[in-house]
């Protein structure tokens, strides 16, 4: 399958947006970028790089992508780092840090760093900077995870490396720690031409609903999230049941199980028990989700819920907003950055609040449609892949002049 090129985005994001990218790229000139992460497939970072790297190249910015290598012991360590940086309590042995550094050093010996901007993604390759003290190029650490409450022992170890970078990039002010280096904000973005977000034929949407035996006889309220207590699927069922006393509708829960989560089956069982034998509640459990089907579920929905108790950035919200869906989201994590309450969706803080908003939006279709329309515009302004490309172009121009707040190009 041929991946969409820059030209294909013109119809979706606007011709002027693509022209602006081309214009900025002409100012960037022949500067180059190297992206470094720890996996070529799977996970949001690899998914993003698969699209951003070819598009930057198409814009004329020579961009390479290299993946670090390591044995299982290294990736076991970096996985525990990932969890600890997001707050999990754990004590690390000195040997663990030494093994982590050993693999970073091995990778450093096998890689070259001749590009103008080196972007190191996430903690796995973060220590590579250690071997580049007298560098002439700029190094930036792009952190995709929530560092607001990191494990202190680990953070003290990693911080010594992070502070050697020229700058860091975080997805939100909520996720960033205090650092001695400049920090840029890059919101996570979605790809409007990916299978999960592209326009679909109504026939395909109908076929997907039929396949999963979801009648379209009543308004459809949907939450698409893995079956995880933090996504509060039981709270969604409670909110739905409260709302249905006043407005007839169906609830659709779609999700896969959290990877490597031994609790997932038990949680799914709790969700099924909460739903009981209610014929209006459809629980779909996917071992591996198909992006175009997720897309169809979202487009078929009258309301999309994201009633999480704790969240990262929650790009499922941006996906639904892009499809002009009215979204009810919890005021946690990155959701308030996407939903401006009452304008691009509604924010709730409880089961009762979610229930009231389901009733309200199903009875005020014009208002709901307006939220959906504004939501799409909000995504267009901040959360599309073209914005990500623009931020990289601006970063290339800005990082060479770290002390200037306004840069005039001519």
């Amino acid at each position, binding site marked *: 399958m041929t991946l969409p090129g820059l030209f294909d985005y013109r119809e979706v994001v606007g*011709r*002027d*947006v693509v*022209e*602006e990218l081309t*214009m*900025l790229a002409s*100012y960037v000139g022949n500067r180059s970028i190297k992206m470094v992460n720890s996996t070529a497939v799977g996970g949001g970072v690899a998914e993003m790089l698969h699209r951003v790297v070819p598009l930057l190249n198409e814009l004329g910015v020579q961009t390479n992508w290299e993946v670090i290598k390591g044995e299982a012991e290294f990736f076991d360590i970096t996985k525990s780092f990932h969890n600890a940086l997001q707050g999990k309590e754990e004590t690390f042995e000195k040997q663990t840090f030494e093994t982590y550094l050993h693999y970073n050093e091995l990778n450093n010996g096998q890689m070259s760093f001749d590009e103008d901007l080196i972007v190191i993604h996430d903690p796995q390759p973060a220590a590579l900077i250690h071997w580049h003290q007298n560098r002439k190029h700029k190094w930036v650490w792009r952190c995709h995870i929530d560092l607001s409450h990191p494990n202190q022992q680990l953070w003290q170890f990693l911080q010594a490396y992070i502070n050697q970078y020229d700058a860091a990039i*975080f997805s939100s*002010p*909520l996720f*960033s720690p*205090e*650092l001695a280096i*400049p*920090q*840029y*904000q890059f919101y996570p973005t979605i790809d409007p031409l990916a299978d999960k977000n592209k326009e679909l034929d109504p026939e395909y949407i109908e076929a997907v609903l039929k396949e999963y035996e979801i009648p379209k006889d009543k308004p459809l309220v949907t939450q698409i999230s893995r079956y995880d207590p933090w996504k509060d699927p039981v709270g969604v069922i409670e909110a739905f049941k409260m709302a249905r006393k006043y407005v007839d509708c169906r609830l659709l829960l779609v999700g896969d199980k959290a990877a490597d989560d031994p609790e997932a089956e038990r949680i799914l069982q709790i969700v099924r028990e909460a739903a009981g034998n209610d014929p209006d509640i459809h629980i779909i459990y996917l071992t591996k989700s198909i992006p175009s089907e997720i897309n169809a579920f979202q487009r078929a929905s009258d309301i999309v819920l994201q009633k999480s108790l704790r969240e990262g950035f929650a790009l499922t919200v941006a996906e639904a907003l892009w499809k002009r869906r009215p979204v009810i989201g919890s*005021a946690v994590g990155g959701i*308030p950055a996407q939903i*401006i*309450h009452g*304008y*691009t969706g509604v924010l709730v803080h409880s089961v009762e609040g979610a229930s009231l908003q389901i009733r309200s939006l199903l009875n005020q279709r014009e208002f709901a449609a*307006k939220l959906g329309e*504004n*939501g799409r*515009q*909000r995504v267009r*302004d*901040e959360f599309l892949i073209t914005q990500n490309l*623009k*931020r990289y172009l*601006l*970063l290339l*121009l*800005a990082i060479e002049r770290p002390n*200037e*707040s*306004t*840069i*005039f*190009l*001519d």
Partner: protein
Amino acid sequence: MGDLFQFSSSASLGKLTGRRAHNLEELLQIIKTCPDSSIFYHTFSTFRKMREVQVPFNNDFAIWISQNLAEEALPEKLTAIELAEHSTILSLRERIAAVIESHRQENPLVFTRTAAKPFYLCDTVRIVYLTDKFAYNLRSFRESLNSISVDSIYFHFIESRLQTQLQTDDFSRWIEQSLDMPDLAAKIRNIDIHIYTLEGLRRKLTALIDQYL
């Protein structure tokens, strides 16, 4: 034929500062002491985006106060500050601080409230650049209007005042000075920016110009 008009545009890259405010007193201190670029980010940059999604507030300070301090009068007063009337960040900063201080005299209790969520002070690097679009008369100006980005429209209509330090937009100034069309310039100058989205503004400008072609 008048002087050539080369369209410019600007783009901003958001930065994080680590500074936070948990109540109005802290917010006031931040507003008084933060860099000009932070004020720009939370006012001019926000205005550019919020108006497109019909949010009635035109700055992040008002949005935060409204959503986290259960206070409505102060956000209204802050939103009533016309960005277009400020051709320097200094004057805008002083105006914002004065409005908040005046509100403290009237409603001291609001200043004792702790916000549900902190205000995160951000910053920005602003990059201003020349585009490859030109106008040399009204007809070519009208044609270019259709192809420039909304960011370029916003830049010339609102933001460039920070460079020119004039209380007028670039379009009406060029049309008046270079094309000698004071009537059309006056009509453009009097467009109420609050009524239109940027695409709406593009249509309004085009419609006005069409009357003179």
